[in-house]
């Protein structure tokens, strides 16, 4: 099972460390990281394996959202299935 973590907002030092630190703390294995700037939006996208997650996925999502709020960023933690269903027939 995989999830997509997207970080959207203003670039700052230490975003990757912070987010990947939370992933490692709860045993989410980072598979891929990409960064892009689309129109006015900076975005980091992280694909993580959550099959051996040590907490509930919803709890991880809450922690990420809270971390985002503290850093002035929007962090969305979503199941990969959302993107697959929306963009693939």
């Amino acid at each position, binding site marked *: 099972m995989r999830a997509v973590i997207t970080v959207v907002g203003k670039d700052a030092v230490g975003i990757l460390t912070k987010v990947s630190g939370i992933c490692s703390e709860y045993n989410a294995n980072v598979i891929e990281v990409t960064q892009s700037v689309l129109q006015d939006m900076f975005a980091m996208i992280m694909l993580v394996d959550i099959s051996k997650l040590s907490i509930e996925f919803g709890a991880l999502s809450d922690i990420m959202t809270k971390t985002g709020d503290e850093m002035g960023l929007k962090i*969305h933690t*979503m199941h990969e299935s959302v993107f697959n269903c929306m*963009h693939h027939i």
Partner: protein
Amino acid sequence: MLNAYDILETIRMIQDECLDIRTITMGISLLDCIDSDINKACQKVYDKIIEKSKNLVKVGSDIEKEFGIPIINKRISVTPISIVSAACGGNPVPFAKALDEAAEAVGVNLIGGYSALVQKGFSAGDLELIKSIPEALSVTERVCSSVNVGSTKAGINLDACGLMGRIIRECAEKTVDRACFGAAKLVVFCNAVEDNPFMAGAFHGVGEPDCMINVGVSGPGVVRSALSKYPEANISEIADIIKKTSYKITRIGQLVGVTASERLKVPFGIVDLSLAPTPAVGDSVAHILEEIGLERCGTHGTTATLALLNDAVKKGGVMACSRIGGLSGAFIPVSEDAGMIDAAKSGTLTIEKLEAMTAVCSVGLDMIVVPGDTTADTLAAIIADEAAIGMVNSKTTAVRIIPAIGKKVGEELDWGGLFGCGPVMPIKEESASKFINRGGQIPAPMQSLKN
């Protein structure tokens, strides 16, 4: 494989364009709760709703968190109560209280099904239920009511139209202290559907299984935003853009519905392919029509653009989900749509234009505020007009109209939240009383003879 553009497109839809699942609605049959003792029947109703839906809100919230898609409402629809209450006789208001208490206990904000189906006449329990609607809606918070007064197959029950005119006024009068909110929880239908997940008109039809999950999607903001990127597109290209966007929105509805159904161990029914607006900025159906090229919603060209929008939404959504149902189309509730509110305030959007729009959109005259001195017979005539459009065009039409007791054109009713605020709209002053008071049944049209 996922690409960054697709991911960011989804994020943008959720974060900036108000993409959400409007409602997960659990339909529950109450046919096995029928009892000649009203107290026993109400207890059975309460117990069954609790048993079936105790996890609904938690599952909805879990899915919301895991998929990152806001799920605005978790709701319940039940078998039309007139069918359940018929065996008890007497005033069926205790059922409304039982529904309200059950809804509160499981944490849903609205419960629909205080309803009667009288398109061809009144059977046992129907008249008692309809007459109790004003009381039921004033003593409960969460209960929604609907009455079906016509169908393409049966014609229009003009006696029921007349009665509903009076009932709507009573609902408003009994809730004057709450901005006449009672009338906002009451819908009068023609060709009502049995699997509608949207309130206030949801009920669980007798042809439905014991329990079912239906999902209503939303996303006017996403459609408007997609169109805004193509200012030079011709109208065929506009239709294509709407179809593609609708496909994406509906896919999310299908995913959420399937997931909720698995977790609740209840069969998944339908996705209602609707564009349901809210008063929030960027969540308006009127603004889509304006994006297509109208200076203001309600002007000439509104019906044509709405027809295109409604059709393209369905075409895009059809392939995105396994089963479609409910009302499926674009909603045009005046008070719940920032663009419609502005258009109505400016006088561009009138009841006459809204009536024309209802011939090509999914529902009908929805959340329209009329002057407080509007007579019951005039309300009944508005209902009859709208039912005629539904009957002849073999489509669902509805009337949810609120007489603003003590207010005139130029004033408004404000409910806040999803219900929004509605300016009092002018209506014709000439009477239709003689027509309404003739009573009887408008015969079914030729369109009904398809066999």
